[in-house]
């Protein structure tokens, strides 16, 4: 039977036990060879050291530093940003942990920030739950936690509460991170997948499929090399910029797992409309196309980590795309399609070749074809 060790939260251990002034074995002269052990999740000294010497100083904010059981956030502060609270959570289990363009830490911050941002939310606070496999390198953990802080600073959010568990070797694959986030929705903004309307233009903010291909290649199982970087980036500032230009965006989602095709199907189905996208208008890098050709994959279904899909009234589309292109997160933005009446609930692609086909939701993962 696998044993999962239930630990206490960061706070409960440390608040009653102030940091030792003695030399700390965890952060002695070198952390290079140090490994996470079950002791780091046991609620004792080792865990306190991990929290006080790594997590608290890295995430570095007054709310976390109080080390209470919960983060306390004054409502007044929230109300400055809008009139509704947005709340989301996501877990990150990527393999490998490091890939061209980023690592799991950045992903865990940007992913949750983006889930908030796409409703027109100003993301403000995140939690950080770490599930660490026994034997994990402390140096790597430090690097990942620092990446989280870097990404949080980039997105203007604070990591204000957290939890750490260490599980026995083999009970988890190296490191899993869960982040939950809260933010505040701008007044007057109402974005939902149900709101796509006939004639709306469909827009995306740049090249699709980069993250999916970067991860596939980083696994080194395919004997393929290509210069593709993950696109992991926070999009809240871009979204805020877009709302300044066009406050009545109908639909907006980030196209992560399942790719562009999945989000478009969600819009088509929730709004009971048809969406027609044009293959020649889709921004796809040559290297991503090449990898997909060789591996028999469809870039429409590849994961992204900083790409949004938008439905807006067609009369606002060009102005919006121009504005998006002015923003660093949207410089390759393009209008990729439009909303039609029928066949309702369906996404169609008009191919560069001149044909038309359905782009359905995937059943499971894309599996490469035999020949």
């Amino acid at each position, binding site marked *: 039977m696998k044993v999962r060790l239930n630990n206490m939260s960061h706070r409960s251990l440390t608040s009653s036990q102030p940091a030792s002034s003695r030399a700390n074995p965890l952060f002695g002269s070198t952390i290079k060879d140090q490994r996470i052990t079950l002791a780091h999740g046991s609620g004792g000294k080792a865990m306190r050291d991990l929290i006080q010497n790594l997590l608290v100083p890295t995430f570095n904010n007054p709310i976390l530093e109080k080390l209470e059981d919960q983060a306390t956030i004054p409502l007044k502060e929230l109300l400055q940003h809008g009139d509704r609270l947005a709340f989301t959570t996501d877990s990150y289990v990527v393999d490998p942990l490091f890939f061209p363009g980023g690592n799991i830490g950045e992903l865990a911050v940007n992913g949750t920030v983006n889930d908030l941002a796409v409703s027109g939310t100003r993301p403000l606070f995140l939690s950080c739950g770490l599930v660490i496999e026994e034997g994990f390198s402390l140096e790597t953990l430090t690097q990942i936690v620092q990446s989280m802080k870097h990404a949080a600073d980039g997105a203007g959010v604070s990591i204000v509460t957290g939890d750490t568990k260490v599980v026995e070797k083999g009970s988890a694959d190296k490191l899993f991170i869960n982040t939950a986030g809260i933010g505040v929705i701008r007044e007057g903004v109402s974005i939902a997948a149900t709101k796509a309307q006939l004639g709306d233009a469909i827009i995306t903010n740049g090249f699709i499929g980069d993250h999916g291909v970067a991860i596939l290649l980083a696994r080194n199982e395919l004997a393929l090399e290509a210069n593709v970087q993950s696109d992991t980036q926070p999009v809240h500032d871009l979204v805020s910029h877009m709302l300044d230009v066009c406050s009545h965006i109908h639909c907006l989602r980030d196209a992560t797992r399942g790719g562009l095709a999945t989000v478009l199907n969600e819009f088509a189905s929730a709004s009971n409309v048809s969406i027609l996208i044009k293959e020649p208008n889709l921004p796809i890098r040559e290297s991503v196309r090449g990898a997909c050709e060789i591996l028999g994959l469809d870039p429409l279904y590849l994961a992204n980590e900083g790409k949004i899909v938008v439905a807006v009234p067609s009369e606002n589309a060009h102005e919006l795309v121009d504005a998006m292109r002015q923003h660093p997160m949207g410089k390759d933005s393009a209008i990729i399609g439009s909303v039609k009446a029928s066949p309702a609930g369906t996404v169609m692609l008009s191919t560069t070749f001149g*044909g038309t086909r359905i782009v359905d939701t995937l*059943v499971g993962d894309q*599996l490469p*074809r*035999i020949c």
Partner: protein
Amino acid sequence: MKFVDEFRDPHKAQVLLQEIQGLVKRIPICGERPIWIMEVCGGHTHTIFRYGINKMLPKEVEFIHGPGCPVCVLPRGRVDDCVALAERNEVIMTTFGDAMRVTGSKKSLLQAKADGADVRMVYSPLDALNLARVNRDKEVVFFGLGFETTMPSTALTILQASQEGIKNFSIFCNHITIIPTIKAILDSPDLQLDGFLGPGHVSMVIGLEPYTFIANHYRKPITIAGFEPLDILQSVWMVLKQLSERRCEVENQYKRIVPPYGNSQALQAIQEVFELREFFEWRGLGSIDHSGVRVREEFSAFDAEQKFPIPNLKIADPTSCQCGEVLKGVIKPSQCKVFGTACTPQNPLGALMVSTEGACAAYYNYGWIPEEDLYPAKTSV
């Protein structure tokens, strides 16, 4: 993208489509019934639907989707055998991606993996051999399947393993051969066909000669076709041209890949390692004589069927499933009584719904858009 976009040029496609429209008018049966062309290969089916070629052609030309998806025609009993092998403690089962999802009578390899079997996806049998090299305490089995396209790589891997004296590697051989199956289809009494698009990558190995009986005996034109959309259109044009001129020949559109006499080294490797089985069971089509191969006796150390006990049960196709009629072109996928209801890509009942190369999955995923939504005023000849 170089060497790809050239074969997807929409302007050239329009020229070919115009030519095709002109040709169709000159074919005698035009107007009485559609002209039926079978694309034998699942790769062609995939291209046809992915690029919407079926919807670009004039209404008078219809594709019949043939038996050339090796994943689809695998009978449920063989999948059960493979799952039984995979579930042995000492076995690492290796397979091509889309073979993971095909279901036996109980489960697929993907489900077996979830239940704890060690099943790994590989891109080549050489990857499987490599796993055997680094996991000496395990038995690595490669789920070998496919037509003559993939047969040489399996054969060469066995030769390599034999040369290195690797003891913990074997293949579960389900390789099949296309010619007896085309013949069985042509002999089917309920079949109506006007011509064939021949399988490009199989022909790269076997050459053109094996197809001559189709033209000479059965009097059907056949064009060996490539897999890019322009390849398909040009090949359709070539078949129609033959029909309009009342010729029945084996023509080669895919000359950039297919040499007339095939690949002698690949054929030699196949010959050395494999021999024909008396018969092999096909999902939807039943048993076809001399349509499968097995590992020769001298390489039996690499034959999983010799190395491990195999349940070897025959499992009948579900009675409601009409895969056989679809494979023979008697009905279209959407005319099957369980299409899209009891049989979907989420819960495939029939084999043709399993792989993206299967005709039913292609219809389901890409193909069922109502005509009026696609082309309100579709051109017709």
